[in-house]
């Protein structure tokens, strides 16, 4: 499946799950900051991606859990080096350049962009062959 087609399907999923307009779903839009996603929406997005692409997404695979609550990874409201390494290990599909410049924990949500979702789906589809 071509990347354009993957983007289009991700866009449809987000329009449906978040009740946003198609033109709001740009590659750089963040799910929470720009598109207004709340916690339950992430589960909704996971379910819808599974249905659209036919692959299975394990818990924490797309949106990792138990990282931000770990004192080794977050100290004084900032993501530690160990935390950054852990996030990168678990989220190879995300772009960390902005977060690395200003690793405030409140900015972690910004790495969950539409582009990161497309990267994730592309990699899953490639692995599935």
């Amino acid at each position: 499946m071509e990347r354009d087609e993957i983007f289009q399907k991700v866009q449809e999923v987000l329009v449906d799950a978040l009740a946003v307009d198609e033109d709001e779903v740009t590659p750089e839009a963040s799910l929470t900051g720009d598109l207004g996603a709340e916690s339950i929406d992430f589960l909704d997005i996971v379910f819808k991606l599974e249905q659209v692409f036919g692959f299975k997404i394990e818990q924490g695979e797309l949106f990792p859990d138990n990282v931000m609550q770990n004192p080794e990874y977050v100290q004084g409201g900032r993501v530690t080096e160990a935390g950054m390494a852990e996030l990168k290990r678990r989220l190879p599909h995300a772009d960390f350049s902005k977060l690395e410049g200003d690793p405030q924990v409140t900015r972690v949500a910004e790495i969950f962009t539409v582009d990161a979702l497309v990267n994730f789906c592309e990699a899953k589809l490639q692995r599935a062959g």
Partner: protein
Amino acid sequence: MRWMWIDRVVELVPRERLVAIKNVSLAEEHLHDHFAADPARDLPATPIMPMSLVVEGMAQSAGILVGHASGFQEKVVLAKVAKAELERDPTPGVTLRYTATIQSLTAQGASTQGVVEMLDHANPGAGFVRTGAVDLMFSQVDHNMSGLEFPEHNFVFGESFQTLLRSSGIDWPGA
């Protein structure tokens, strides 16, 4: 039996589908306020079951279906109304039928699709007529709250739900 918006479960296919009915009755007190007569505007009383309670009826139907999948061990909480399209007012004397189907189900939660139908007893030959759709998302909160803790007892599936299932002829798991 408080806050129960279905009268009976008529079909349960575990982890797949649940069908429930609700008989709308003029004996329900809220119908006298929704809507009361307004003499100042020369409007007569118009008893209609609020659509929000139709959504709640579907949430209870789908919630039982999701809860049954884990033997009612999980605290299943309505987290999102993904879609609610309801086209006809339920008036006293009609029977609503809720058909909830599981779309996705994991340890964290579930998404369900629901069809609402109405039987008008003044026109029984027409049978149940589709009047809308209510799609929902449920969270199994003990798996989702990032460290927040909830009481150990299951505050969702209490005695009212147990009574409903028992009177519908469905065994409560472990009972």
